[in-house]
């Protein structure tokens, strides 16, 4: 997939002042988490931040499997959902029986739920890797999701299990009723779990996981059993996914079978992959991007899932290293002060590429409104210009934008490739690229 190793922080630390920069990044992240809701204090902003926080933990847990150990799972939501259900049940038990367990501890219960299932099925699942593991994860995911509708007492059938997060013993006088308090709880746990998952990558197990990802055969000949390595990775991934699920249960005060389903598994795969699986911060980026996309697009269009699919396909085909991969590729250029060689070609390409994108959006929206029949407006508002989907003009404009945009854009992309070639040569000469 991508060409560089996940040792960016390692290398960062070894440069002069590198340790400062490394801890500095974590410090800034922590400060940002604290300060963010003070700057953007609207209700919807708080909700978004809470959702993003949970998504970050979920996506990071997924990358323990995919980016770290090379295991592609289509059923990761199972641990997330089971963690959520266990957390909600325990919350209800705490409230009913007056147990002295405060709310901040509940996500750990979620983690245990995810971990328990991972321990149960993980040994058999990790016997095979690669494509077979992916298929098995799909099957197990469907198994659990379908079972959840049968075991109504545990999973509450279609309506799920509800809870009340304010009914638990209060801590520091916080009831966790207001969203801002829930946000800070999530932010705290995001920081803790991100640090924990990062630390995992720096342990002997973490290093061997990378080795198993790169060359499982060779790993046997340095004394390690790849099966055991995968099983342990699976356990950790399950724990942190369950953790995220527990936080979701707290956030929405409900757990239902949708948490376990294929859609949720697809979501975390999208987030991790679009963000970039080769870097630790990739899934963090991906979680932010995908959550915002989802929140933003649902209001604007009925077919937001189609856009997701298209973006995902585009990333797989043209940038399999994800957004993080794209960003990190520029690092050698920045160090070699050669970034200026590619920027002009980007600017030139931006216009036709934008035309192409707008054309695609117009086409999709036009088809969507056209086939939707009654109840949907016939006007597509693109950049403030209303397009009437019933007139031929709209279809013509869309076609022109797509075809014309593509033909022109293709030429500009070639210029980008040429500019990169020159910039990479300069970077190589200056010793910043191997």
């Amino acid at each position: 997939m991508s060409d560089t190793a996940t040792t960016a922080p390692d290398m960062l630390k070894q440069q002069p002042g590198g340790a400062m920069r490394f801890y500095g990044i974590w410090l800034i992240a922590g400060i940002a988490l604290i300060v963010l809701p003070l700057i953007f204090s609207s209700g919807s902003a708080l909700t978004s931040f809470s959702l993003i926080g949970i998504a970050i933990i979920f996506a990071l847990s997924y990358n323990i499997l995919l980016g770290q150990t090379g295991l592609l799972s289509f059923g990761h939501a199972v641990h997330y959902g089971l963690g959520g259900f266990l957390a909600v049940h325990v919350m209800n038990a705490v409230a009913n029986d007056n147990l002295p367990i405060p709310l901040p501890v509940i996500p750990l219960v979620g983690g245990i739920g995810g971990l328990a299932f991972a321990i149960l099925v993980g040994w058999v699942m990790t016997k095979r890797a690669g494509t077979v593991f992916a298929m098995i994860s799909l099957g197990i995911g469907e198994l659990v999701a379908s079972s959840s509708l049968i075991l109504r007492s545990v999973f509450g059938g279609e309506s799920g299990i509800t809870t009340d997060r304010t009914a638990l013993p209060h801590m520091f006088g916080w009831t966790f009723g207001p969203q801002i308090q829930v946000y800070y709880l999530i932010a705290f746990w995001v920081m803790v779990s991100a640090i924990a998952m990062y630390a995992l990558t720096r342990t002997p197990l973490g290093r061997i996981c990378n080795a198993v990802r790169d060359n499982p055969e060779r790993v046997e000949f340095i004394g390690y059993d790849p099966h055991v390595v995968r099983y342990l990775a699976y356990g950790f991934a399950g724990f942190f996914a369950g953790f995220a699920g527990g936080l979701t249960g707290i956030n929405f005060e409900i757990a239902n079978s949708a948490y376990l389903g294929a859609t949720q598994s697809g979501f975390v795969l999208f987030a991790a992959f679009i963000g970039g699986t080769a870097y630790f911060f990739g899934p963090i980026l991906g979680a932010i991007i995908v959550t915002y996309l989802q929140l933003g697009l649902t209001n604007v269009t009925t077919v937001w899932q189609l856009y997701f699919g298209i973006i995902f396909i585009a990333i797989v085909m043209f940038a399999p290293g994800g957004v993080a991969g794209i960003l990190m590729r520029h690092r050698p250029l920045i160090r070699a002060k050669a970034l200026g060689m590619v920027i002009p070609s980007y600017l030139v390409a931006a216009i036709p590429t934008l035309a192409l994108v707008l054309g695609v959006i117009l086409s999709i929206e036009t088809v969507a409104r056209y086939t939707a029949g009654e109840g949907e407006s016939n006007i597509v508002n693109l950049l403030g210009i209303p397009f009437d989907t019933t007139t031929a003009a709209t279809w013509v404009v869309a076609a022109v934008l797509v075809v014309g945009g593509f033909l022109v854009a293709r030429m500009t992309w070639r210029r980008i490739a040429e500019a990169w070639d020159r910039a990479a040569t300069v970077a190589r000469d200056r010793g910043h690229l191997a």
Partner: protein
Amino acid sequence: MRELIVISTLNGVLFGMLLFLLSSGLTVIFSMMGVLNFAHASFYMLGAFFGYQLTRWMGFWPALVLAPLLVGAVGMAVERYGLRNTHKHGHVAELLLTFGLAYAIEEIVSMIWGKSPMDYRVPAALDFPAFTVFSTNYPAYKIFMLAVSVAVFVALLIVLKKTRVGLIVQAALTHPNMVAHLGHDVGRVFMLVFGVGCALAGLAGVIAGPSLVTQSDMASLLGPILFVVIVFGGLGSLPGAFIASLLIGLIQTFAVALNGSLASVFGPLDASFGPSVLTDIWNVTIAQIAPILPYVLLVLILIVRPMGLLGTRET
């Protein structure tokens, strides 16, 4: 009871043949190209929807011929412009591409045709009872479906065993690298194989559409079962896929027909147990757990024989 057994066996074999129609294409594509086409069930769905739409415009019989060809063309385009470019990034990337494709196709189908079931009717020429089993009429259309499946199966067998193309495909089933070295235009062969595999899936969709429900969630319902069939039979094994398809087809059909539960056999549980896992399991009917049965089989085969029934190839 005997009636139930006969009807269920017929339906089970029918469903199994349908599964095999799909899983054979999937197996050949996987064996030749090393890519597991996550979107295979989506091409099946495209076949059903194209079949429905074309039937509305020109009648069932032209649609029967045209729809699979259209689906095959889409498949070839996907291979030429999608898979071929992703091949250099490895198998995971290819699998993810087909995953994204499945996602996108489902959304496009929902967008164009909506999320409700389509009124895809059995053609009038076949809308009569073929024969009567005990007291039930068995529809002629289902016999037609069975006949088409068997015909395709036989045609596949002939092509594989008797023609040059078939020889190449057979060789590729066990030695894909060698096929490339033999100097064939690998790109063209791949495009053809992928196209034919998808066309077969489309054909299955066209004929299954009127009988099963034609709806935009067809692919996501059938897809996972298809992969269970593949893993159960053994990746890369056509005979394994055949056995697994029939087995799972029969098991699911019989389970859906049976309404028994522990409660129906042993009587209701004492009310004092209240709502609990035990009551849920006690009261659930076999028909309700029918959707899970394939996955239970999956777990079993993984524990007992991880490479599948007749598995030959590692990933």
